């Protein structure tokens, strides 16, 4: 184990994978000589040159489509999209092409393509640099969606992504990029579809996504002083979604809250709630609750930005509400 930042940990997975697999290449604005806007590719250009570390013009649709064609023909592209907001121009390619190629070809094509970059609200980034949108990708068949919440998972999930033959979104919350934590040295892979029970407890289950995992852990710690025992689950991937671990937890606690920074309607919380209601109805001692960011574009002003994101106080309130049911 070595202490590393989230970004360093993910870069380690990329560095190792690029050494091992000469078919991997990275595209993005600034992914080349500059080493990535968020230092995602630092040092790799010097090692692998401009074909494998490819600077692009500002044409997200174009390079996503290009990478789709590349993935169909024997290479393994990594699209470094900077902010998820930018790849919305490529959703036509992603939804109509990338996600469907395996099916349309009856499984004869594979689609080893990774889409990686920033999500999330913070730093007054405003509405064109703070989107998350992973519920959209979870809705569409064909995609995998990884949402690491700590450096070790960043390395482990990215390593898995870089070996997947399905297209994978690897989404990094902007508030986690410089987070430090212990990271396993050498080969480390976290399989998709295995949630982590990051804290055990008996009174209620909190399922938290990306940055909210940290809020949930702090609230759990705070409330433990009051004798409340919370179990906290980090799904780590939302497609596939490890419902079994969540159901098992609910069997124990009887209470469930899902906290997610991004929009509520048709979100991940909705999916988890609906699934648990259908398959764990008899285990529930209280209504399942959801806590989400407000259903609005992200405002710029810190005064407004704070108001639309669930904070620890809101989370603690929601937990108390759930326990009181």
């Amino acid at each position, binding site marked *: 184990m070595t202490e590393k930042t989230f970004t360093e940990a993910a870069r380690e997975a990329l560095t190792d994978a690029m050494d091992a697999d000469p078919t991997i290449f990275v595209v993005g604005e600034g992914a080349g000589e500059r080493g990535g806007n968020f230092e995602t590719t630092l040092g790799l250009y010097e090692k692998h040159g401009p074909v494998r570390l490819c600077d692009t013009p500002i044409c997200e649709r174009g390079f996503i*489509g290009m990478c789709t064609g590349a993935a169909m023909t024997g290479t393994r592209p990594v699209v470094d999209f900077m902010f998820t907001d930018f790849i919305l121009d490529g959703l036509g390619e992603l939804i109509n092409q990338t996600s469907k190629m395996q099916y349309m070809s009856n499984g004869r094509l594979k689609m080893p393509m990774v889409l990686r970059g920033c999500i999330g609200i913070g730093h007054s980034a405003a509405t064109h640099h703070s989107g998350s949108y992973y519920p959209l990708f979870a809705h569409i068949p064909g995609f995998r969606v990884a949402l690491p919440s700590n450096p070790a998972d960043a390395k482990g999930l990215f390593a898995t992504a870089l070996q997947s033959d399905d297209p994978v979104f690897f989404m990094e919350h902007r508030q986690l990029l410089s987070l430090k934590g212990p990271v396993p040295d050498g080969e480390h892979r976290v399989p998709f579809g295995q949630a982590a029970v990051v804290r055990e407890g008996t009174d209620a289950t909190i399922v938290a996504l990306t940055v909210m995992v940290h809020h949930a852990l702090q609230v759990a710690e705070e409330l433990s002083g009051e004798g409340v025992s919370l179990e906290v689950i980090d799904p780590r991937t939302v497609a596939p979604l490890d419902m079994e671990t969540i159901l098992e937890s609910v069997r124990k606690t009887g209470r469930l809250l899902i906290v997610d920074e991004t929009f509520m309607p048709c979100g991940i919380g909705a999916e988890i709630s609906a699934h648990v209601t259908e398959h764990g109805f008899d285990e529930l001692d209280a209504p399942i609750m959801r806590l989400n960011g407000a259903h609005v574009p992200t405002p710029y002003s810190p005064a407004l930005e704070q108001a639309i994101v669930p904070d620890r106080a809101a989370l603690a309130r929601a937990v108390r509400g759930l326990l009181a049911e």
Partner: protein
Amino acid sequence: MQSDAGERFELHRWLYRTMFTIRTVEERLARSFMAGLIHGACHTYVGEEAVAAGVCASLSEDDAVFSTHRGHGHALAKGVSPVALIAELYGRETGVSHGRGGSMHLFAPEIGLMGTSGIVGPCILQAAGAGYSAKLLGNGSVGVAFFGDGAVGNGAFHEGLNLAAIYDLPALFVCENNLYATEVPFSHASRNPEVAPRAENYGIPGVTVDGNDVLAVHEAASRAIRRARDGGGPTLIEARTYRTRPHAEGMGLTGVYRTEEEVAAWREKDPIKMFRSRILSDETMTESDLDRMESDIKSEVDEAEQEAAAAPWPDRGTAARHAYREAP
């Protein structure tokens, strides 16, 4: 080693055989459509056969072709068998996409047909991507996109050509300018009637050819493909051609957008008829050679149709397979 004349004979034979096969299959499919044997839309390639044949003559199975809604001709020219194509449109398990695709989603990656598409535009980007793979892998193959004039005003054209240009990708972009997108004339979709000169914007060569002259297409394409394989980067070819059937089966042959006279004039320039005269004047084959080839092809296509019609339906239990590569 073969003589030049022998090569020329082989080329002519291949081109004629390919074009005539496409025509025969398409006309067969048009009848099948009327008979209710085809379940979705069906856009035939009749009148444009010289483009697919002329380009694909220089491609191997390792080259990657990406095509459009009007992709039967490209599939056949790339080596898909008539029975696999017909069975696909009939929705059968033995179809080239095992019934998952239909007319607009033809996949035979094992021979480099990387897919036709129901969406206008993406093939251009994907061909650039195949070029990217070829460049990274250094395997000498080429990515080829076929697309219509309708794609020229689309962002994919602009972004795809630019990407291929700046990375010097081994790619070939073949615009089949048949003057209309569905029933919208190109003159309405663009103030600029030319496509090939737009290549200049991207700093790459652009070539206009008579898309009904298979040898002209072949000549331009083989030069561009050689150039691409040699690291010279991409080329844009504008093949001027015409579809002499409706946009899709079931639609009108003419309408507010074009006249009977225009269609008749283009039928005079039928690419197969033109090539037949050329072969006869070149004396690479005789009238009876060609007649025999035609009747052979007709029988083959008839048999293919019968085989397709008798083929099993896909097993409905498999419908959910292959959305993902891996089990979760």
